[in-house]
């Protein structure tokens, strides 16, 4: 397995390089270094001299990919792409175009993102599995039918509606939780209740249906018939046997998103003023801060690859028949 992990980690290098080239290309197709300079320097009294000075100071006065004026290896190294990308591979994100240390900002902002995303994932998982198991328990009854209808309805409504509706109902009308904001330590709890509840409710539709499908597939298998024949109650069959055997697909879905929890949720963070990484990325795109954009895309790619690797490892832990070669 060690060999497998090393091999997978080696694969990540060309993958990350490709992601970096693509990000770089897409960003500079729509933005020139001049645009970035003007965005940073403001709107009034911006002269050409000021723009060129900014570019020199921030290293955007070099060619993008190839520096034809330089010789040999410098053709590659004396370019914006090389200068701005190479340090990412050792996780040195550098200074943003507006002058802040990106690494320090990421360290600070990943915790609020995680504070919302982790309870949302865990509680959501629990609620989804429970709802799915109940639907399986009451299968072929009108309860299952209406449960499925409710899932479809929940799925059909935009996440934005849940957020605005939730804020209106719980914060404005009932006045039970703050509408938005964030606090440190225990103070953060009151700000997290509503976003977590909304995340769980809005994910219940798709999650409930997905897990129901998994359990329905399991419930028809021979070992379930045997378990019933042994005289186990339906709840024992479902919660002990069916749930255990459906863990592989559940794990696949969960582990792969675990690293991405750090990256935060854009809409949720924006509406609840949670200072996480989701809003950090979007702010950077709006401000045309390439340094932050490439760092966040790079980090997202690394975490996603890590998530896939973790999933593969988890397979071997859950199902001893699976071997990683």
């Amino acid at each position: 397995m060690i060999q497998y992990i090393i091999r997978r980690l080696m694969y990540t290098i060309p993958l990350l390089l490709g992601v970096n080239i693509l990000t770089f290309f897409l960003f500079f197709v729509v933005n020139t270094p001049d645009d970035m300079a003007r965005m940073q320097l403001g709107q009034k009294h911006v002269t050409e001299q000021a723009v060129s000075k900014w570019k020199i100071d921030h290293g955007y006065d070099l060619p993008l990919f190839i520096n034809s004026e330089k010789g040999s290896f410098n053709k590659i190294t004396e370019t914006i792409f090389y200068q701005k990308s190479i340090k990412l591979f050792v996780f040195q994100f550098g200074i943003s175009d507006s002058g802040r240390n990106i690494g320090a900002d990421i360290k600070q902002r990943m915790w609020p993102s995680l504070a919302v995303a982790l309870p949302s994932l865990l509680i959501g998982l629990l609620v989804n599995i429970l709802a799915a198991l109940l639907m399986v328990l009451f299968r072929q009854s009108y309860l299952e039918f209406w449960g499925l209808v409710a899932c479809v309805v929940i799925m059909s409504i935009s996440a934005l509606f849940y957020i605005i509706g939730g804020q209106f109902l719980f914060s404005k009308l009932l006045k039970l939780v703050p509408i938005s904001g964030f606090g440190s330590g225990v103070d953060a709890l009151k700000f997290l209740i509503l976003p977590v509840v909304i995340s769980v409710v809005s994910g219940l539709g798709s999650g409930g249906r997905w897990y129901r499908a998994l359990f329905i597939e399991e419930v028809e298998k021979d070992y379930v018939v045997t378990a019933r024949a042994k005289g186990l109650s339906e709840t024992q069959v479902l919660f002990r046997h069916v749930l255990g055997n459906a863990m592989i697909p559940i794990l696949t879905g969960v582990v792969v998103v675990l690293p991405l929890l750090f990256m935060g949720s854009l809409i949720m963070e924006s509406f609840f003023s949670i200072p996480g990484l989701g809003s950090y990325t979007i702010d950077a795109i709006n401000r045309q801060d390439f340094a932050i954009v490439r760092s966040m895309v790079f980090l997202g790619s690394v975490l996603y690859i890590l998530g896939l690797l973790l999933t593969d490892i988890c397979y071997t832990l859950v199902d001893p028949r699976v071997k990683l070669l």
Partner: protein
Amino acid sequence: MFSVSCKRWLLLIHCLLLSSCNDAMLNNPYPAKEDKQSILYSSFSERPKHLDPAVSYSSNEYAIIGQIYEPLLQYHYLKRPYQLVPLTAAKMPEITYLIEDQSGVLIKTHVEPEKVRFTDYMIEIKPGIRFQPHPALAKGKDYFYHNLQVEDLIDIATITDFEHSGTREVVAEDYVYQIKRLVHPKIHSPIAELMKEYIVGLKEFSKIGKIQDPIVFRAQNISGVEVIDKYHFRVRIYGKYPQFIFWLSMPFFSPMPWEADVFYGQDGLADKNISLDWFPIGSGAYMLSENNPNRQMVLSKNPYFHLERYPNSGEPGDFESGLLADAGKSLPFIDKVIYVLEKETIPYWNKFLQGYYDASGVASDSFDQAIQFMGDGKAALTPALQEKEIRLQTAVTTSISYLGFNMIDSVVGGRSDQARKLRQAISIIIDYEEYIAIFMNGRGVPAQGLLPPGIFGYEPGAQGLNPYVYDWHDGYHRKSMATAKRLLSEAGFKGGIDPSTQEALVLYLDTAASGPDDRARLNWYRKQFSKLGLQLVIRATDYNRFQQKIRSGNAQLFLWGWNADYPDPENFFFLLYGPHSKIKTGGENAANYQNVVYDRLFEEMRNLANGPARLEKIHQLQEIIRYDAPWVLGFYPKSYSLIHKWYQNLKPNLMANNKLKYTRIDSDYRARQRQLWNRPLWWPMVLLIGVGSILLWPAVVIYRRRKKAVINAR
């Protein structure tokens, strides 16, 4: 068994209902201990880019640094028209004009002659002003933190982690040092190029190269800026530039201790985001005690703030409206200002209604909830807001929105009769009254000239009429469609037909627009042009592309605006001054308008003091612009502010950046009102749980039935 369980449920419900009568505000986003403190709560949606006074130039940055840094002059808080008064200067600068005598020797004169070679500003600053406490100024025998090593920074995460802080008196050299910083190659001040044209020796000073060591940099001199003694310095500028005095009221000209650059320039601090751009060091009423642009920024009272008193006089009506109740009292009144990150308008609005923000603007989403128009067309608050004793303040901003013509364009540009009449026809048919009603909820005033209200030279009523677009009959009335059609016909485009193609004349409008709201707005413009049979092609793009088109002269028609830097007519008329042409010099004349007479009048007007002679020049300039129509004069936007009753001493002042020190919060009253408005409601939750339980009952029944069926089957 059942009865015990039932009793427990009843007890729980009882507790919940009781707690609904409790005074705890569960939706309070702030710690309860802050309830009765004199704290102003405001917000920011985007973190400021810069807080260095040499670099900051946008309104959201000024909202913060305006309270921290103190330039030499400030705008009187209450008096109108806007009036500059000394802030850290002991008196208004002494202005001396230097002329050359016949032998070429410079001689001083206090009158304003025609041929001025240089102007000297002799400035005296108040003694005893001190900088806020800051580690850069912490000093024993030597400075504590001017020689930091890597190990010293291990436990430092933010500026407040330094154990010691110090202060010192603000001296003339601090102002001179800041002027030097304006052209430091690493600092990128937006006014560096502009000031090089005016301040004697600044251009030469900027060529000394990148001096990294602040102590060496400090030792360099600008030939036109001289420290006379501890409290006096002199700035010499080329020729006459009366508007220079307005720049002296902006944060660019605040004192900066050289120690700040020494401190922040040390290795390792920037990696922790500890820089002058994020942790200012000023002498103003407030200091930035917490700067977490990812969550909140906090301004606290500067313990070393010098004595400054609330104005004793204002304009008529200020006394009656209570604005002079604090006359002569020591400033500031508010202890702390907390700016909270709030990205969306809906949560902000709801928190304002709950009393958790002290003031709010009026976003379009909430406009109908807040404002209603009375029979006489005046805006008033809706009953719901009146019930909360919220006040509405409106003010016409010192800005203008316009539709510009590129004057070098072959169809709409140039000063031929044909092109001018086409522009005049277009000016008539774009119905900005309708635009303001539809897209701005009435928050604007159609422009009759270049100057908005509040700027010297603005004239209301018939005197300020644009006779080429409006008629005066007890009010402004846009000229008829027939007039526009006649002008179009005289321009050679009868019925909107281009004789060269025998099809509708196609015009191209460039604008920076991308959102769905913009689509309706741009369709409206298309509809206006179609009234004359003209076809308008919209070329909407992002702001960068738009600017690029304007810079290269590739736009034909374009939508843009201007927000005044200072309340002087020069700051508007320069937008059409020939030598400032965008395509030739990259200046602010985006229409590339060239008119020798206009340029001459502008040069004469800008050097005159406000008075009849200047007003006459302004009349002539306005007439030229109205006749030549290089812009369709759009509208002056109006700002609407909603203020809670407990937020006092607030008067719209569109020029002052340091208004917070004058305002006051009645925190006891606010605490009572918040309590009243935010009692939690529990019974709907209890009801919800009850209904949920009832709905679960069929599940229980089915489960029991199935279980019984299985047992029976066995």
